């Protein structure tokens, strides 16, 4: 039985100006124990899909289950199996960290075993570096600390399936390290993890399988290693102060002084270098490496849409 199953999920938002199709026939399963990445540009439908999974939104069509429990007809069991870390940095200003965690666990019916629950709350606080903030009011915490509390709130009822919706957006390196170590440990202990992130190096490092969404459709679904292997495998990186020749602009990614150009083989590398030489450009710190997930992502996202476009691979 899959940990999470999306079957032909569609979502259409209607307003006065017409209908907006946020999700279009999305289908895939996530198996128990997987660390699964859901990627896509802003507006691709990732958060809508997670909102449907969490019960924050209702699908216009299709079916979603968590460990076999339908998120609509058997919502209580489905939600009890899920721990969601929301994207927005939200908190209840009336309560301390410990009160917030106790209340959240109570919603899930785990207050009855108070001693065991308090021990788990202490463990969560320690693992997320929050022990010294346990009695602080939520308003007194920094943004990073509030983010840690959101993670603790998602885990307080010991859910077998954890959903992290862009958990590291705008947080410092220390929290990222702490968070990923903790989540990786939970995954090793058997928890299923579904992650959405814009930090593709995180997805590449952590996720065994990845789905990519574009305009509400699944456009790629495969093991991370297969996605990396199945694309342009060479990346030319260098620094340059002058403008790129016009013929290279379309295939380049420029971040400040750093230029990255995809090349499919050695001959194409030579051609690019030739164009640069002819234009009088002087690239510095030139290196040739393997394409990473960001390159794969950009390549897939830049492919023109086709009618009934199939996912690149279905594993």
């Amino acid at each position: 039985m899959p940990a999470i199953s999306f079957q032909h999920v569609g979502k259409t938002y209607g307003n006065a100006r017409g209908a907006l199709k946020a999700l279009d026939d999305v289908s895939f399963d996530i198996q128990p124990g997987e660390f699964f990445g859901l990627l896509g540009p802003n507006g691709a439908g990732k958060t809508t899909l997670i909102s449907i999974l969490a019960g924050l939104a209702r699908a216009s069509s299709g079916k979603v289950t968590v460990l076999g429990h339908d998120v609509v007809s058997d919502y209580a069991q489905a939600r009890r199996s899920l721990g969601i870390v929301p994207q927005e940095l939200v908190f209840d200003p009336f309560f301390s960290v410990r009160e917030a965690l106790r209340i959240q666990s109570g919603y899930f019916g785990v207050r009855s075993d108070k001693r065991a629950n308090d021990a788990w709350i202490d463990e969560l606080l320690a693992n997320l570096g929050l022990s010294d903030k346990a009695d602080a009011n939520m308003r007194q915490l920094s943004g990073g600390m509030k983010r840690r509390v959101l993670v603790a709130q998602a885990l307080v009822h010991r859910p077998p399936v954890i959903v992290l919706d862009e958990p590291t957006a705008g947080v410092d390196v220390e929290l990222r390290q702490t968070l990923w170590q903790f989540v990786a440990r939970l995954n090793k202990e058997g928890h299923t993890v579904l992650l959405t992130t814009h930090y593709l190096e995180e997805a590449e490092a952590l996720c065994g399988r990845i789905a990519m969404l574009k305009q509400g459709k699944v456009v790629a679904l495969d093991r991370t290693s297969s996605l990396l292997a199945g694309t342009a495998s060479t990346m030319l990186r260098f620094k340059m102060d002058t403008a790129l020749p016009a013929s290279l602009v379309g295939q380049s990614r420029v971040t400040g002084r750093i230029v990255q150009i995809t090349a499919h083989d050695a001959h194409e590398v030579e051609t690019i270098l030739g164009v640069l030489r002819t234009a009088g450009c002087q690239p510095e710190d030139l290196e040739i490496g393997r394409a990473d997930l960001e390159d794969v992502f950009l390549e897939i996202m830049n492919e023109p849409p086709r009618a009934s476009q199939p996912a690149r691979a279905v594993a």
Partner: protein
Amino acid sequence: MNPANVLSGTGTLLYKEVLRFWKVAFQTVAAPVLTAILYLLIFGHVLEDHVKVFGSVAYTSFLMPGLVMMSVLQNAFANSSSSLIQSKITGNLVFLLVAPLSHWAWFLAYVGASIVRGAVVGAGVMLATIWFAPLHLAQPLWILVFGLAGAAMMGALGLVAGLWAEKFDQIAAFQNFIIMPMTFLSGVFYSVGSLPPFWKGVSHLNPFFYMIDGFRYGFFGVSDMAPATSLLVVGTSLLLVCGLCVHLLKIGYKIRH
């Protein structure tokens, strides 16, 4: 579904809602008690020697139960409406939305907390005003029944308003243009029996009148309307508002897209 889990989830939400208002009790309990004392002092001072109600009841004695019930109703409404709109606007409603709580759990917890706040404020107003006029307790059961029904109805109405509103102004408008006039024109400060026939008829269309009148009957054993009639109107209004509230919660009106 395990009944113990349901109870624990509902109980936790009730506890959280009570704790929420209790943490700011200066604003949520002390302030309305002070307002009621001011009303009693000012209106009592101006009218005590000029008005006798129900034949022999002194004006300050008559005013006291009305102020208690008005405080109960306004604070029961404020509790559920302000809690829900704050959670919606700050986004922390997500903690409840992802929890395995049924629409009944939401309803019972929010309305329960509104009843608790209404009772605490009502008791506070009574304790604070008891020194200004002798207390009559002719029919305590009626006091309890109308107090509970009124607080429950306003708690449910607050929940409806909180679900409907998308910003604080809308809740303020609901409170200032609907709740406040209906409570002020319900006979808190006067006996509806003393009004001209037209305004008496208008007052009889206001369900708040029956809540105040029935509640006051419990204190003096006399009222403008028969208490059974008032109970019928209040009970019917309560059922209608609760039915609407439970339905809106069930369909996730403006909280689940």
